[in-house]
């Protein structure tokens, strides 16, 4: 058996070990690399930055706990930018598993930092089943769909909600998601009500949404942890995404190295076998 055959039959546990080391190594030896800002991220940042002071912005937490590593830094950075600009933030989720809890935990933490008051500066609407009806229904009346907030307080008792009736009162919608709900925010809310929608999605989902950026139906896009890291830099609040970039870099490089090694070994082994057949 040649060296190339041995490489091709490499035990997968060695690969798992290499991935583990690539993740652990930056924790021991910190490394920093310059993060360049892509136009899609800058577009999202600028869209929020250009909103008038005290504008109402809807921020969604449409993600499951499994993708927190990619999506939560986006929500945190978004809240930082929105509260820095004194925007009124309306949060909600279309994901039943964890969405309301994540929204509550993240929003309260960031709001505390900026001394924002619940009900005055931000409101968490929570979760309602059947997202298509929820998205469409809020175009007529948010209160009809969400009579109370996440903790059961009637919306009529929250000062911030007195001036927010439907999408007409919302200046921008920031969708942070790990699932297909983004399509509905575009096709229902942006297309039918003309509200600008920007989004932060997982890296595997991001390529799909370039078509919405191209058609100007989406105003800015954060793609995966890299998008979140770029956004953190623009907001000037470096967090988990910037920290995670080194680990992601090493794992990407490892995968690229393994693909190259696998191909070299594959073709070298095939050539050796062909030579062997001739003799």
């Amino acid at each position, binding site marked *: 058996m040649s060296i190339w055959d041995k490489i091709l039959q490499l035990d*997968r546990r060695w690969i798992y070990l290499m991935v583990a080391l690539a993740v652990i190594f930056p924790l021991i030896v910190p490394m920093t690399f310059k993060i360049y800002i892509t136009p899609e991220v800058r577009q999202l940042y600028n869209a929020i930055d250009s909103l008038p002071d005290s504008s109402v912005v809807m921020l969604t937490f449409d993600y499951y706990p499994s993708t927190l590593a990619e999506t939560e830094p986006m929500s945190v950075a978004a809240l930082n930018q929105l509260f820095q600009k004194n925007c009124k933030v309306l949060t909600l989720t279309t994901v039943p598993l964890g969405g*309301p809890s994540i929204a509550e935990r993240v929003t309260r933490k960031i709001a505390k930092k900026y001394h924002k008051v619940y009900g005055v500066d931000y409101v968490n609407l929570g979760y309602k*089943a059947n997202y298509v009806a929820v998205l*469409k*229904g809020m175009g007529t009346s948010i209160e009809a*769909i969400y009579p109370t907030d996440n903790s059961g307080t009637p919306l009529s008792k929250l000062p911030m909600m007195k001036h927010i009736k439907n999408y007409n009162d919302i200046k921008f919608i920031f969708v942070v998601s790990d699932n297909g709900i983004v*399509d509905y925010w575009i096709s229902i809310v942006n297309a039918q009500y003309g509200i600008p929608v920007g989004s932060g999605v997982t890296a595997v989902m991001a390529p799909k949404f370039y078509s919405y950026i191209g058609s100007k139906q989406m105003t800015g896009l954060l*793609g995966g942890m890299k998008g979140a890291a770029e956004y953190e830099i623009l907001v000037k609040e470096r967090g988990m995404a910037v920290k995670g970039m080194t680990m992601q870099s090493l794992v*990407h490089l490892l*995968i690229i190295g393994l693909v190259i090694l696998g191909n070299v070994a594959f073709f070298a082994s095939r050539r050796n076998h062909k030579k062997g057949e001739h003799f």
Partner: protein
Amino acid sequence: MRTVVPVIIAFLSGFIMIVAFFFNPDKTILGKIESEVLVWVTIVGGFTLLLGVVSITRVNWQAVKTKKKGWIYNFLTLLSIFVMAIPAMLPSSWSPFFGDSSGSVYDWLFNYIDAPMMGTMFAMLAFYIASAAFRAFRARNAEATLLLLTAVLVMLWRIPMGEAFLRLFSDSLPQMINNYVMNGVNLAVQRGILIGAALGAASMSLRIMLGIERTYMGKG
């Protein structure tokens, strides 16, 4: 009767939603009906969640009762559902452990068991992807080679170290990948898929409204 009534409901619901789009919801009866229907849909959606819980309880309870192979997992599923749901449904005024606010049983279980477990499952993908990429990603023909090269370029572009490496060749290389790969070829393909899927969804909706498509009633 069992076929005609659902078809009529499906037709009317779809028809109202389509036609009402062209009317002001505040000033016309049709618009008001649309708003009302949308509230109904969210209520029905809530009941479907309840139906899901009833269904999962029945299936798992049956397996526990008959001591089916692996019944312990069915038991754990039931235990997880009720331990998480019951304290969350009880009013927080009774105890700080009830409800779903910070400090409740639900919140604790979610933050310290559910979220880490789901995160772990997702993180394990990195190990499988690395192993699969090593074994399966081969430049066997022109198409596969093109895919492989594009994947490598995009993977490099999406990381700071990779971008720094690409900039060694040309400062405009990362921008070119963004312009020609993501906003070029990728955009065109994704748009084609989206338009195809949207046309498919529209035709399926029409089939349901006209009663041609009846699989949702359990009929072919």
